[in-house]
């Protein structure tokens, strides 16, 4: 399991390639990439800023990943997450999982993303035409998180 925060732009496909290198015998690779959009519900976004709590954020994300890895018998998980200032078009997050069984890899990536959306100690601020605004978690994400909690492997 690898968890990394970075304040620099990263290339999600390059990260994925490095993650899978030499482990093709796993058979199944699932990945999710979240990208910084240039708008949020029609309002232009110039910049995204993600605040984090150094040390604690990494530890909490690793705990969530470990949880998911155990639950779906899928120990090979990679998380790369941007923090700091992010421009539209850049990758915000990459979650990837390798498994012998594609169902486990799909479940692991999907549920870990659900967790990250609600439980990762990260705080988003969007700067657009109307100025800067801190984002609160969406009811939709909370609901999905609650559902994920009940999902069996």
């Amino acid at each position: 399991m690898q968890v990394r925060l970075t304040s620099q732009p990263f290339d999600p496909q390059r990260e994925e390639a490095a993650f899978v290198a030499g482990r093709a015998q796993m058979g199944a690779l699932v990945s999710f990439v979240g990208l910084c959009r240039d708008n949020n519900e029609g309002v232009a976004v110039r910049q995204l800023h993600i605040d984090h709590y150094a040390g604690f954020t990494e530890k909490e994300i690793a705990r969530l990943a470990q949880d998911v890895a155990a639950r779906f018998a899928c120990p090979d998980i990679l998380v790369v997450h941007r923090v700091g200032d992010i421009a539209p078009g850049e990758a915000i997050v990459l979650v990837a999982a390798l498994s012998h069984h594609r169902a486990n890899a799909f479940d692991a990536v999907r549920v870990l993303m659900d967790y990250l959306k609600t439980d990762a100690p990260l705080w988003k601020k969007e700067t657009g035409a109307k100025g800067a605004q801190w984002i609160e978690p969406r009811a939709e994400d909370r609901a999905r998180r609650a559902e994920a909690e009940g999902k069996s492997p």
Partner: protein
Amino acid sequence: MVKLVFLGKLRGLAREDAEVALPADVGTLAELKDWIARRDPDLGSAMAATQVQYVVNQCVVRDFSLPIAQNDEIAFLPPMSGG
């Protein structure tokens, strides 16, 4: 001395993260919270208006009667917006 860390929207309202010397009558988390609100009313009302999680030395704390020790790092986390 303790270190105070404010995250997200609280960070902008707080003074710089810094080592602060607490008065002798600030010995628990509850007392710290009140002291911050007296010292910094804007930050105090922002903290009162949202759900703040307390993290002491990187562990989530729910018991506000917890005594504060020298060199503690105490963080104030508003609701997370996730990744």
